[in-house]
């Protein structure tokens, strides 16, 4: 046990390095995109027609008159220590705003991930354990069709039917800041379902493919021929061999959730991290966009990193 733990701690830095490198490159691209290309945050905040003196004063106030390399390192250091900088628009630190929105996004994403685990994964297993049957084909076709529908279309159709048509849920999920997202669960249902639908069809397809491949393997066939009943074949012979691909499929749902949240949160007016990114882009708030965008990208990269870990034999247990 201690040997295993020691080998883990020795391996972890090597596994973390590629992900950290990706994040470094992403942060550089993000810095370029929000700070340098279009004119800096000060001129963005004051607009094109502001007097040069005012822009210069704000620039000095925000430390934008320093060389870009120094500002980048400073920003990067701030990200690592949790200091996300001060918005040129609101003159407030953006860290607390980002943290509050991220917390609400986490509630949504956790709910969606729970649906993926409880619905999409079993659906993928059932479809894959008997490949080629009508049930398998229906599941595969449905997942593939759902996967291609943009989230905002799904969101609007759900709002039309379940909020306005049937009146089961509120059409807008604007949860108040103080009480937290969990205080009003009815508002969470539709955004969570929308988010889970797309990520879930992606995961279900991956799980189905892995299970279908394992279902054709000789030892599963042998178990079936030996007259072992189907549930036991599934539990004892099929599933143990696909644990790693299933973990991988789940981890790969995380980037989907992060990307999909951009649209889903905006469509439902849910004040989460991704809606904050979209809002910051619309308001041209560079510092807020940089911080929130970096956090969202980090979530996606983490998902890919976890998937890669799950795919390595020594981790699959």
């Amino acid at each position, binding site marked *: 046990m201690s040997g295993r733990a020691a080998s883990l701690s020795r391996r972890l830095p090597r596994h973390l390095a590629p992900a950290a490198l*990706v994040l470094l*490159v*992403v942060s550089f*691209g*993000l810095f*370029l*995109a*929000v700070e340098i*290309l*279009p*004119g800096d945050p000060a001129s963005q905040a004051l607009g094109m027609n502001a007097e040069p003196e005012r822009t210069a004063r704000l620039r000095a106030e925000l430390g934008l008159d320093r060389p870009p390399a120094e500002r980048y390192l400073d920003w990067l250091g701030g990200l690592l220590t949790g200091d996300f900088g001060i918005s040129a628009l609101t003159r407030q630190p953006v860290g607390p705003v980002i943290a509050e929105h991220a917390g609400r996004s986490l509630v949504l994403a956790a709910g969606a991930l729970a649906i993926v685990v409880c619905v999409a994964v079993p659906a993928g297993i059932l479809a894959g354990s008997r490949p080629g049957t009508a049930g398998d084909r229906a599941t595969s*076709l449905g997942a*593939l*069709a759902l*996967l*291609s*529908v*943009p*989230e*905002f*279309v799904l969101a*609007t*159709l759900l*709002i*039309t039917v379940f909020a*306005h*048509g049937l009146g089961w849920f509120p*059409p807008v999920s604007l949860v108040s800041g103080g009480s937290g997202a969990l205080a009003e669960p009815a508002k969470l249902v539709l955004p969570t379902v929308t988010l889970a639908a797309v990520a879930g069809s992606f995961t279900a397809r991956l799980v189905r493919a892995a299970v279908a491949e394992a279902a054709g393997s000789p030892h599963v066939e042998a178990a079936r021929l030996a007259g072992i009943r189907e549930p036991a074949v599934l539990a004892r012979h099929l599933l143990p061999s696909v644990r790693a691909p299933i973990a991988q499929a789940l981890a790969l749902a995380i*980037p989907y959730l*992060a*990307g999909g949240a*951009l*649209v889903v949160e*905006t*469509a439902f007016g849910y004040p989460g991290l991704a809606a904050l*990114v*979209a809002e910051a*882009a*619309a308001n*041209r708030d560079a510092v807020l*966009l940089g911080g929130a*965008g970096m956090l*969202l*990208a980090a979530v*996606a*990269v983490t998902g*890919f990193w976890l998937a890669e870990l799950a795919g390595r034999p020594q981790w699959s247990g």
Partner: protein
Amino acid sequence: MVRLTPGWLLVAAPGVVAATVALAGPLVVDDAATASRGRPFLPPGPGIPLGTDHLGRDVWSMVLDSGLTLIVLPLVATVIGTLIGASLGLLTGWRHGALGALAVRASELLLVVPPLLITVLALNAASGSGTAVLIVVVALLGVPSTMRFTRAATSAVVHRGYVEHAVAIGERTPTLLVREVLPTVAAPVLADAGLRLVGAIYVIASVSFLGLGGSALGHSWAGMVADNVVGVPLNPWAVVAPAVGIVAVVVSVNLVADRLADTARRSV
């Protein structure tokens, strides 16, 4: 080769209908048809089969008039991206050098950040100057996948007899790639381009729903959905009609491209 079966027709039909409406619509509709008819969000009635939208315009005429954007822009972006990606894939698959490996590694960076986030950031950097930037970004977003796919397909072809024969008789590399390799990998690459098209429609539609990407995008089925969602209790058709159009296009293209890609992959 691919045969046309009833299954194929069934899967392709909704997309063909929606695309026909989108492509032919602007020819049918004149300025008078898209002028305001009066109050916003009127329910369907005589002369207004799907009611009116947020500006009191006839929804059916607006659907006919604004379908083109979500077909043409993604198509242009996909063609550009496929040309770049397939060329890079052919070259790096032909010669397995350090440069090719580096290109694949670098392209992975584009794959780990959500495409929509990249697009939003790029549009922000472009100061909202819109459609041209959007096409370039969406085209580039498709390049990594196309490149990896073409590279793999090319690598599989390189050592076949007829290619080695052409190398032996001293054909020049560009001639070789175009005459011997390209015809074999063209079908799978085109099928892959279909999947890229779905991705392009997804990103462009989502960006226009978010209200980014310039005024040209506001005039689209996605823009209609965004504009009319407040009026759903009064006239749901103003949202449902363009939404159904988008669903018909993406689902058909995705299902057809997936089948084609499957068949093509088996043939390589």
